[in-house]
């Protein structure tokens, strides 16, 4: 029988719906699955999928154009995405970019005429330790150099013609996650089920554990709120959308200690009374998926997931993995929930908070990967042990992803309360000009403040440390940050959407010596407005770098040589 292209798409989509529910939350998974076979989502496919889900085609279009990893136009067989985070830039991403452009004969944003390669920039892919890095489709290649890039492209061509898949190449990341490494899997779960949910919450609260994603909300309280919230259905969501530039500790935890994350989710389910857990895994970490799936399968076989966990009737809980689609803002918990529901990842108005009304309007616990792993250790070794580390308001230890100008980048387990200086000592970063503490949304700390403590009392952070050496240009740093925030802003609220563009224009004016002091003051004032009025953490933190530039590095912007003269 002759079939038109549309008939074929229809058949494929119908087939996909056999393994996906006809609910809106299946929208992104369906688009992703269709894209695997089909390369991109055609207009017909969007309309047909919309029809199947009983939503409007325009809604599917709005969603598809929101996420970076959903293609609404045909792209190359190999989509090369080069990470443009600051660590990559410092380690030669620009040279790699030039090599890619020259090798392929196209510019970024273009596809080769033969339809083989598409070249794009992408936000941080969690490979800062081995920067520069890029993705070729779902495979990651790190420690790139110009000659290596050339070989990778040649390999892609050859492997395509010989029908062999291209396999990524990532070397080991240095990590000293000693506490997690010494943890005996399932110690927390077996202990927790002998306790009442209230006792588990009390233990967590006593430990002083706060959310490790960056916002620092007390974890015990979050579980307590969700446990107290009314609702037949409750959800435990693991936020594995680790997108903060310079952060890769969650990747290490998921790679080495995935059991702990799933275990803590199971404990959370026991505490709040949930039957369904979801890991929201950023698309850039697709390479972790097979490993995570195998861990989940093993846990199901060991009766640690599924019905009657540990032989306890009624303790039913399972976990599924939901892939993100390339949007940093989905690390914000309400945006993440919107994304889970099959919508554009735009943060919600709060209240209500997710613990009260989250996924599908049900009480939902959203915890960062590291928070969950820490919860396991706390339940195993006791709140006292955990609280004995750190400072008054910052208890326990924390993983830091360290990259940039230092001799020993990697993931470090360190107690809260150490100074920036101490940290630089540990990682071989002495003599730095500035340190970005807490990723792009954190604080840019100048050398004269290296005695500041890394703790919620002072520099409370999500875990990313980027070290800038003496010859780094802070205006370039600011430009890179702002380009990132502009690209990753969801675009719903005015100050973040439009304000950051003005800040970036301002930084470029500074670079070219065309920004008056008066306008600079306007921009600093605008920065405060963006911080005060944006809906979510992304906007609220996006102008930090401009404020830091003005406060700490003013001599660098006022007396700089003008570009292009």
């Amino acid at each position, binding site marked *: 029988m002759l079939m038109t292209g549309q008939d074929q798409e229809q058949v494929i989509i119908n087939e996909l719906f056999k393994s996906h529910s006809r609910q809106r939350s299946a929208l992104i998974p369906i688009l992703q699955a269709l894209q695997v076979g089909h390369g991109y989502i055609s*207009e*017909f496919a*969007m*309309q*047909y999928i919309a*029809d199947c889900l009983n*939503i*409007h*085609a*325009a*809604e599917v*279009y*709005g969603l598809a*154009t*929101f996420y970076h990893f959903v293609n609404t136009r045909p792209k190359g067989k190999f989509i090369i995405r080069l990470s443009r985070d600051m660590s990559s830039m410092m380690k030669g991403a620009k040279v790699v970019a030039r090599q890619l452009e020259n090798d392929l004969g196209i510019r970024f944003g273009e596809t080769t005429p033969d339809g083989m390669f598409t070249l794009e920039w992408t936000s941080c892919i969690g490979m800062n330790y081995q920067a520069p890095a890029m993705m070729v489709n779902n495979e990651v290649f790190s420690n790139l150099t110009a000659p290596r890039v050339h070989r990778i492209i040649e390999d892609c061509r050859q492997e395509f013609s010989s029908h062999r898949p291209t396999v990524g190449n990532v070397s080991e990341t240095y990590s000293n996650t000693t506490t997690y490494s010494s943890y005996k899997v399932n110690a927390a779960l077996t202990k927790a089920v002998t306790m009442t949910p209230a006792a588990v919450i009390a233990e967590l609260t006593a430990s002083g554990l706060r959310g490790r994603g960056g916002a620092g909300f007390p974890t015990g309280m979050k579980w307590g709120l969700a446990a107290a919230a009314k609702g037949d259905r409750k959800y435990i969501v693991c936020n594995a959308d680790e997108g903060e530039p310079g952060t890769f500790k969650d990747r290490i935890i998921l790679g080495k200690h995935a059991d702990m994350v799933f275990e803590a989710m199971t404990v959370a389910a026991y505490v709040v009374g949930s039957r369904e857990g979801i890991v929201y895994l950023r698309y850039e970490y697709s390479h972790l998926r097979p490993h995570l799936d195998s861990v989940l399968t093993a846990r199901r076989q060991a009766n640690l997931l599924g019905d009657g966990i540990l032989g306890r009737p009624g303790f039913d809980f399972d976990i599924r993995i939901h892939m993100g689609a390339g*949007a940093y803002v989905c690390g914000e918990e309400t945006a993440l929930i919107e994304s889970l529901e099959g919508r*554009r990842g735009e943060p919600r*108005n709060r*209240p209500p908070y997710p613990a009260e009304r989250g996924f599908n309007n049900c009480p939902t616990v959203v915890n960062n990967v590291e928070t969950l792993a820490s919860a396991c250790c706390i339940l195993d070794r006791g709140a006292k042990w955990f609280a004995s580390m750190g400072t008054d308001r910052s208890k326990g230890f924390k993983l830091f992803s360290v990259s940039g100008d230092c001799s020993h980048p990697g993931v470090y387990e360190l107690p809260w309360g150490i100074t920036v200086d101490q940290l630089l000592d540990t990682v071989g970063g002495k003599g730095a000009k500035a340190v970005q503490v807490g990723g792009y949304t954190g604080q840019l700390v100048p050398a004269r403040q290296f005695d500041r403590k890394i703790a919620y009392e002072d520099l409370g952070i999500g875990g990313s440390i980027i070290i800038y050496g003496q010859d780094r240009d802070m205006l370039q740093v600011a430009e890179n940050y702002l380009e990132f925030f*502009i*690209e*990753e*802003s*969801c*675009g*719903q*609220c*005015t*100050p973040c*959407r*439009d*304000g*950051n*563009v*003005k800040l970036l224009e301002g930084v470029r004016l500074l670079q070219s010596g065309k920004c008056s002091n008066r306008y600079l003051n*306007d921009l600093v*004032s*605008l920065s*405060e*407005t963006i*911080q*005060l*009025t*944006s*809906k979510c953490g992304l906007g*609220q933190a996006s102008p930090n770098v401009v404020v830091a530039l003005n406060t700490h590095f003013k001599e660098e912007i006022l007396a700089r040589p003008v570009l292009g003269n």
Partner: protein
Amino acid sequence: MPSETCIAEAGTVTVEPDVQMVTATIDGIALEVPSGTTILEAARTIGVHIPTLCHHEDLRPAGVCRICVVGVEGMRTLQTACTTPITQPITVSTNTKAVRTARRHIVDLMLANHYGDCYACKRNNNCELQALAKEYGVDFFRFGHPTEPKYPIDRTSSAIVRDMNKCVLCRRCVRTCNEVQGVGCLTVKDRSARSQVATFGDKPLSSVVCINCGQCINRCPTGALSELDQTDEVWAMLDDPTKHVVIQTAPSPRAAIGECFGQPAGTSMTYQLNTALKRMGFDAVFDTNHSADLTILEEGTELILRLHSALVKRDNAVALPQFTSCSPGWVKYVEHFYPEMIPNLSTAKSPQQMLGALLKTYYAEKNGIDPKDMVVVALMPCTAKKFECNRPEMCDSGFKDVDFGLTTREMAKMISESGIDLPNIPKSDFEMPFQDASGAGQIFGATGGVMEAALRTVIEMVTGQKVEKFFDRANIVPVRGIEGARMAEITITEVGPVPEILKHLVPDWEWLRGVTLKVGIAHGTVNARRVVEDIKAGGPFSECHFIEFMACPGGCLGGGGQPIPTNAEIRAKRAKAIYDLDEAYAVRKSHENPIVLQLYREFLTDGPCGHQSHHLLHTSYTPRGKFIS
């Protein structure tokens, strides 16, 4: 700051008995509000002004423009007043340095992306962005101002023009299209500073699923959305001495156009408008209510025939419930979303099109005018009427039955251009032969009005009794109201003789004795969708015999061509004006309209749903579906 105490007035904020009261202090003024009241609502009860832009009473709060930010004690960042509920005692300040600076910056940022000059904009003096700029004393463009347009203007639709250069991304249109209308034509595409209000695939409006209802225009704070302006074309016709230009006016614009001339909502301008139109050069002004009365007779007869086939002939193929077809937005909605339900749509044309067809035949013949030299203009509350009059099937007179559909706003502009002070000119009558109509035609403008008009006629025709016997002053209150979807039942306890006009169609009414007539009413397309889904699922609405559907909230009086702004309060006032006028009519039932009866005697001689009326007054529909290529 002196501390005052006042209690939110009952009626401003509805107090449910079991809702807790919470104390709030706003700018030093303490007040008690029901828990869950937003800061914005609370502030309004004590006269504290908080600016808004993305907020609209008809829509769910979005909190995206951020202009309404206020300081809340204990919060690090400013909070949006429109989305923040007061659930525990709070202290709010709306006038601090941070708040003022932030609002000014937000206006500055919007202006930095808003292309266009105020004096070359339809919304000049009626623009929320312009008003905010004034409120915050904007005297220069702090963050620049675009000098070139970024996007081409989409003029492809026969009803709506989209100029995204003026869009400030408040998303009111998107929310209207999805929440209120359920059409889902508009969405937000892309992200970050690239995000933009868009149609599916960024296609021109004429080729996507749009029902032309224009509700997006009514909620647009700027000039980004407007109706396709045809005033110049109408002026050209008026200025052409060879043309005989006539106009028909619908009840809703007459009840609302005063708002464009500083009158409070709900001021009827019917007869001043007649004077104005004649001064502007229209050769004759007619009342669309006549064809509304005709619609009742045609659509009512069609219903009786359908019921007769179903109840007496036991014909299962008859499509019931019958849907009204006078709202062109609704008709296109059915064609797109429920093409399988097209048989349920009454084949009767809308009043605009019926009168158009009659003017170019009956009126032309009577007055010895060659219809090719005639221009029929319709003053409507509606943008979809522009699309409707351009439908290829609307040429039954042998010419385009209605040449131009003008919105209330376009007409207000033409009147201003003419230098006419509408509220203060003498009143005058409509022209013969379509002069004094009935109150039944009048209430077509309000939700439930078509149903009430139909029932007045059906009850009298079937029972042979005065409707006043069953309903005080012929006000069929059960079908009135504002609920988005509602039902009413009327049991026919007695039957009378079949009136002359219907004798050739049914022999007697005995088959209707004891039958309970079930009717439904839906307004706002999202409610229409609910009703149709309910019918398809075999729910209560599937038992209805007749359902009135209006695409726009509130019915025509809330139409997409009506003066801006619109909200529930304004719609209620317009509705009151319409119902008050109905009561003032001497004739309040369509079948008693002497002109309509004369028409059936002289012109449509084979009666309602007869051959001639089928030719001129009925139409067919086009299954369109949702898929576009």
